[in-house]
C-alpha cells in the first residue's frame, strides 16, 4: 500500500494558471476583439482608418501647422510665394480678441467686466462644487447678491464713482455670459414656481402654468425674442420702454423658464408619494413641505437635467444676435468682414474660434452633469 501510494502522483498545490492565449489578451487581444472580430468589422475598421487618414492631416495642417499665429494685418494670412497655402489666420483672432470679449465696452472701464467674470466664476464654483462649505450661502450669493452687484458694476453707478455704461456698448463674450446667466438665475426659481403651479390642485394656477409652459415650448425661441423685442415695447407706456438688451433678456428668461419648469416637474414626479405623506403627517404646511422636504430631493435628482437645460440655454443665447444684440457670435460676424483682415480663411478661422469657445463651455458643463449623475447613481446603489 505504502509503495503504491508513493508511485501515485497527487498534486498537493494548485497549479499556476496559464496566461490567456496571446490572441486574447493585451494589445493584440484588444485589437481582435474590438476592431477585427469579423469580416464586416474589418471592413468598417479599414473604412474608419481611411476616413481619419483623409480628414485629419488636412485639418491639422490648416488649424495648427500652416496656421498663422501672429501678424498685424491680412498680409500675413494671404497666399504668398513663400507660403502658397496659408492655414487658419489666428493672428486675426488675436487682433480682435478684446472686441470678442468686451464688445464696445469703454477700454478704461474693462476691469469692471473682468471683475464681473471673476465674481461669477467664484459663484459658479461655489455652487457646482458639491462638497463646498455653506452652499446655501452660495445660492444666496448667486441668485441675489451677484445679480445686484453685477448690475451696479456693469451698468455703472455714478454715485459711487462708476461711470454709467449703456448696454448698447456691451458686447462679445460679456453679453453672451450676461444673457446666459440672467437666463439661468431667472429660469431656475421661475421654473420651480411654474412646475409647482402645474402640479397644483388649484385650477386657475394650474391653467396659467400649463398655458404658459405649453405656449412657450410650442414656439421657436426666435419668435419669443421677436415678441419681446417688437411687441413688448408696445405693451408698456413709452417712457418705460425697456432697452434692447433687457427685452432680449426677458425673452430668453421666459423661454428658459418654460423648459426649466418641465425639467423640475420631472424631478418633482420622482419624489415618492410617501415623502409628501410623511411631511403632511408631521404637520408641515404646503410651503414648508415643499421647501424643506420635496424640493431638495427633487432638485438633487434632476441636477443633471438642469445642467443640460443650461447647456441648451447657453447655445440658445446666440439667437439674440438675430434681434440685434452684439453677443459673441455677432462680434465674430462683424469682425469677419473687416477689410483689414479679409482673406479666404478669415471666416473659417472666426467660426472655428467661436465653435471652440462654445464647445469648451458646453462640453465642460455636460461632463459636470455626467459626473453628478454618476455620483447620484452611486448614492442610490447603497
Amino acid at each position: 500500500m505504502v509503495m503504491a501510494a508513493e508511485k501515485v502522483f497527487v498534486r498537493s498545490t494548485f497549479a499556476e494558471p496559464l496566461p490567456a492565449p496571446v490572441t486574447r489578451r493585451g494589445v493584440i487581444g484588444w485589437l481582435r476583439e474590438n476592431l477585427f472580430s469579423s469580416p464586416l468589422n474589418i471592413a468598417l475598421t479599414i473604412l474608419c482608418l481611411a476616413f481619419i487618414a483623409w480628414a485629419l492631416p488636412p485639418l491639422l495642417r490648416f488649424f495648427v501647422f500652416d496656421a498663422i499665429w501672429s501678424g498685424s494685418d491680412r498680409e500675413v494670412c494671404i497666399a504668398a510665394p513663400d507660403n502658397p497655402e496659408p492655414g487658419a489666420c489666428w493672428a486675426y483672432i488675436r487682433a480682435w480678441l478684446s472686441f470678442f470679449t468686451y464688445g464696445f465696452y469703454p477700454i478704461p472701464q474693462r476691469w469692471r467686466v473682468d471683475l464681473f467674470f471673476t465674481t461669477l466664476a467664484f459663484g459658479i464654483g461655489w455652487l457646482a462644487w458639491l462638497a463646498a462649505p455653506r452652499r446655501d450661502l452660495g445660492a444666496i450669493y448667486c441668485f441675489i447678491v451677484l445679480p445686484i452687484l453685477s448690475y451696479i458694476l456693469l451698468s455703472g453707478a455714478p454715485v459711487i464713482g462708476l461711470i454709467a455704461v449703456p448696454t448698447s456698448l456691451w458686447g462679445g463674450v460679456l453679453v453672451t455670459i450676461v444673457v446666459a446667466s440672467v437666463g439661468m438665475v431667472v429660469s431656475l426659481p421661475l421654473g420651480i414656481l411654474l412646475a409647482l403651479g402645474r402640479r397644483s390642485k388649484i385650477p386657475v394656477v394650474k391653467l396659467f402654468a400649463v398655458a404658459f409652459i405649453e405656449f412657450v415650448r410650442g414656439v421657436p425661441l426666435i419668435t419669443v425674442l421677436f415678441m419681446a423685442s417688437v411687441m413688448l415695447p408696445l405693451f408698456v407706456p413709452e417712457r418705460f420702454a425697456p432697452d434692447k438688451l433687457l427685452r432680449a433678456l426677458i425673452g430668453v428668461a421666459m423661454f428658459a423658464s418654460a423648459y426649466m419648469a418641465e425639467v423640475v416637474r420631472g424631478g418633482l414626479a420622482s419624489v415618492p408619494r410617501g415623502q409628501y405623506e410623511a411631511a403632511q403627517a408631521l404637520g408641515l404646511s404646503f410651503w414648508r413641505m415643499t421647501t424643506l422636504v420635496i424640493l431638495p430631493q427633487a432638485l438633487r435628482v434632476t441636477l443633471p437635467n438642469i445642467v443640460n437645460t443650461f447647456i441648451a440655454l447657453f447655445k440658445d443665447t446666440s439667437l439674440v444676435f438675430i434681434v440685434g444684440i452684439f453677443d459673441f457670435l455677432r462680434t465674430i460676424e462683424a469682425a469677419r468682414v473687416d477689410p483689414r483682415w479679409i482673406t479666404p480663411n478669415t471666416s473659417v478661422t472666426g467660426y472655428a474660434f467661436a465653435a471652440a469657445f462654445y464647445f469648451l463651455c458646453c462640453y465642460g458643463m455636460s461632463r459636470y452633469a455626467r459626473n453628478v449623475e454618476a455620483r447620484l447613481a452611486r448614492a442610490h446603489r447603497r
Partner: protein
Amino acid sequence: MAEIAKLLRPRRLGSLALQAALVAIVAGLIYAAAVNAARNLAAAQIASGFRFWNNTAGFDISQTLIPYSPSTSTFGDAFWVGLLNTLLVGSLGIVFATVLGFTIGIARLSRNWLVARLAGGYVELIRNIPLLLQILFWYNAVLKALPELSGSIALLGGALLNNRGLFLPRLQFGDDFRYVLGALMFGFIVSILLNRGARRHQDRTGRRIHIRWAVLGLIVVLPALVFFLAGSPLTFSLPKMGRFNVQGGIEILPEFAALLLALSIYTAAFIAEVVRAGLLSVVHGQTEAAQALGLRPGTILRRIIIPQAMRVIVPPLTSQYLNLIKNSSLAVAIGYPDLVQVFTGSVLFITGQAVEIVGLTMAVYLIISLFTSLLMNLYGRAVAITER
C-alpha cells in the same frame, strides 16, 4: 348647506382668494397692455387688424413653391409662400436627420471600437456647438466660398455647383410616362397581395413561401420593361451655364442648402442619442431569448429589438422633429425665405403690425406642435403594452 360649509372652510377660502387674485392680476396686465398698445399704435399711426392681408406685398421672394410675383401677390400669398418653404425644409430635414441620426445612433453601439468612437465624437462635437453658428458656417464659410459662376464645379450627371447654388438636372416626363407609373403601381399592389397571401400560408402551415424574387420582378423589372417599351419617355434638362446665370435645371439656393445641411446634421446628433437610448432600453434577455428560439440575427433585430425600441424612441424622436421645424426659423439669419423671414421679417418691416404678425407666426408653430403632440398621444396609446 354642506357644500357651502365646505366652500367656506379656511383652506378653500384661501384657494379661492388666490385664484381670484391671479385672474385679476392677469386680466389687469392684459388690459393695461391692450390700452398701452392701442395708444402706442395710434401714436405711431399703425393700423390694426388683418386688413393688410389682401394688400399687394411688393417685395420679391427668392424661393417660391407657389406662383408669386411682387407686383400682384398679396401679403397673404407671402405668408403661404413662407409657410410652404418652412414645411419644405422641415420635411426634407426630417428625412435626412432621421437617416443620419439612426446610422450614427446604431454606430455608437457598434462593437467596433473605432466606429463607436467616431460616432461618439460626432455627437459630442455637433451637440455642443450652437445651431446658429453651424448654419452661418455652412452658408458663409462653405457655400458662399464656392467658386463664382464662371468657375462652376461640374458634378456627376451634369449638375453644376457654384456660389449661387446647386443646379441639378430637371427630369422631364413624357406623356407615356404614365404607363410606367401605372406598371409601378400595379407592381406594388400585387406585391402587397402576394405578401399577405404568403403570410397567411405561413400562419396556416408554418411553411414560408419566399416571394423576394417575385416582388423584385414586379417592382423593378416590370416598370423598367414598360419604360423601354414606351420608348424611354424621360429626358433630363441639364443646367447650362449662361453669361450671367445658369439656365435650365432645378436651382437649389445656397441658403436652402446651408439650412438643410445644418439642420440635418445638428438634429441627427440628437436623434442618434435618442436611438441609442432606445436600443439600450431593450434588455439583453430579449436578445438571448430570441437566440434560444433559434432566430437569426437579422430577424432578431427586425422582429424583437426594433419593435420594442421604437416604443421608447418614437416620443422623443417626435420632439426632435418638432425642434427641427422650430429651429428652421433660424433661416432668418441667412435669408432663406421661411415663414419667420418672410412674415416677421419683410411683412412686419413693411406693415409695422407687430402684434398681429408675431401672434400669427406663433400660432402657426403652436398649431404644428399641438397637432404633432396629438398624433403622438394616439401613437402612444396604440403601442402601449397591453398587460394582462
